[in-house]
């Protein structure tokens, strides 16, 4: 593995639902903060859209602004999921970067 993914996914199956939690490493800069050394404004850099799919079917699409915290965390609950199901989370930011991670429910 050359580079660690920016996304971490954890899932836990309960009797009536499956909890999926995700943590993304991202600065989420608002464009309002100043660099402490140079005093210049740090340009905006934030995730604009995030998608969450289960077994290839889109479950949720999120449109985000920079009001979301640095290193964003999200959680979702699937009504029914089996062990071995795939969950895919992907994001795209305003500078054109993106990342995707596939996770298998235990």
């Amino acid at each position: 593995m050359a580079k660690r993914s920016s996304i971490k996914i954890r899932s836990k199956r309960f009797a009536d639902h499956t909890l999926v939690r995700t943590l993304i490493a991202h600065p989420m800069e608002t464009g309002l903060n100043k660099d402490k050394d140079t005093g210049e404004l740090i340009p905006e850099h934030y995730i604009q859209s995030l998608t969450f799919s289960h077994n290839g079917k889109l479950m949720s699409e999120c449109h985000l602004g920079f009001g979301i915290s640095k290193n964003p965390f999200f959680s979702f609950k699937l009504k029914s999921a089996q062990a071995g199901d795939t969950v895919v989370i992907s994001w795209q930011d305003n500078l054109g970067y993106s990342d995707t991670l596939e996770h298998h429910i235990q």
Partner: protein
Amino acid sequence: MFTKRRHFLRQIITLSSYTTGLIFSKVSLGNWLASDFSKQAIDATLKQQFGDQILLTTPKIKLKLPRVAENGSVVPITITSSIDNIDTVYIFAEKNPVPFIAKFSIAPELETFIGARFKMKETCDVIVVVHADGQYYQTRQRVKVTLGGCGG
């Protein structure tokens, strides 16, 4: 001639309502729009998002929010609701420079449950709006932000 025009207009209306119905039945939210996230007051943002739609205040949306957020840059929120057929959830922070925080679409296979963490500039109301069966519902909760421990 007038009847023809009326007929034509009626066709357009039926067609457009049909296509909007199609769009709303999908999970996709469409393109990310910069105008959604413009720097403006909360009233302008709500007006832009919902137009003249009535936002019914309901106790059926439950928010899990801290009453006092020690650090405004990380405010955890959990949204659950007992309203059926929710397809979209919106989060706003009243006094943020950009009040629109995020919107989430929800597929029927998902429970109405969203956890997230967002930023708050100062003490204000957090407004959550959900869309279900063509109706908007809202609820709000005040969060006190004590930045760096020097706030009131």
